[in-house]
């Protein structure tokens, strides 16, 4: 049972990565390409050897934007999908009386909010040329710290909601859990330092397009993961019903 769910999660994750690749390639690559153009231009303007064009030669842009992008997404998709399958194994039958498709869809929506949307409200995706090389260490630590807090607080809020369900009823207990998550994460975001490393001349429209494309890529990944996983689970239950 657990083995099946793990495998199904990884398979769904790979499928989802292909969907996410289409979104990333179509709407993510254009602003990313323009940001690289800005990066190279800024390097030349400063008279310095453009670091970007130097490193870009190891792997060509053509490979980065196709095979590299797909590989990165598939590896992440398989990893996220596997963990999704195991989280589904824990959630099934424990979170309300939802069927497999609704359980998977809710789980994917929660995953997107907790692992992508909330962390990116504080530390949004940065295109090339945004962020200085000296701060990559601090930025990486802060980003993963934010991810960790988001997961911990979400688990604690879920636990709180489940404890309160008997006393408040499931609707009010769910609302209390959601409010607790939002309140604590607001405090966490307030305490963690903010980053502002966008170069003055960087075009605002490109930055917005890039960040939107980043969220859209993640949304596509999570939506496809949840829906594919739910559909596959539903199909296997219909073939071989449990009791």
């Amino acid at each position, binding site marked *: 049972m657990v083995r099946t769910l793990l495998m199904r999660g990884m398979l769904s994750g790979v499928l989802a990565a292909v969907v996410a690749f289409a979104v990333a390639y179509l709407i993510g690559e254009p602003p990313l390409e323009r940001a690289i153009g800005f990066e190279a231009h800024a390097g030349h303007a400063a008279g310095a050897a453009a670091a970007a064009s130097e490193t870009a030669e190891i792997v060509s842009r053509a490979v980065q934007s196709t095979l590299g*992008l797909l590989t990165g997404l598939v590896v992440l998709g398989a990893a996220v999908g596997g963990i999704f399958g195991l989280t589904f*194994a824990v959630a099934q039958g424990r979170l309300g009386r939802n069927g497999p498709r609704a359980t998977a869809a809710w789980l994917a929506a929660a995953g997107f909010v907790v692992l992508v949307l909330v962390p990116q409200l504080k530390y949004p995706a940065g295109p090339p040329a945004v962020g200085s090389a000296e701060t990559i260490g601090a930025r990486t630590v802060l980003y993963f710290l934010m991810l960790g807090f988001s997961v911990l607080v979400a688990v604690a809020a879920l636990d709180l909601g489940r404890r309160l369900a008997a006393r408040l009823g499931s609707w009010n207990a769910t609302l209390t859990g959601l409010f607790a998550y939002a309140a604590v994460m607001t405090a966490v975001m307030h305490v963690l330092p903010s980053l502002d490393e966008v170069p003055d001349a960087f075009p605002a429209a490109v930055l917005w397009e890039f960040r939107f494309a980043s969220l859209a890529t*993640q949304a596509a990944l999570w939506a496809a993961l949840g829906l594919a996983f739910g559909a596959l689970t539903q199909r296997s239950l219909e073939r071989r019903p449990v*009791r």
Partner: protein
Amino acid sequence: MSDIAMLSGTGVPPAALPVIPLREIAPWAVFASLLALLAVWFVGAEQGAVAMIDGNAIHEFVHDARHLLGFPCH
């Protein structure tokens, strides 16, 4: 929530999902989490802030995915 389950249920009653004991999930969870962490590390962070492998090849190969997934890249 039960409305959604009723809408989506075709042939499978909403309560049909069995509860799997946590004891049964735990070993899979530990092993898969370790592998997943490693995978996320290579896509999201290797050769960025810190590197286990010298050079820039991994960073450059997954460069676009890292940026578009929202990880700090460089």
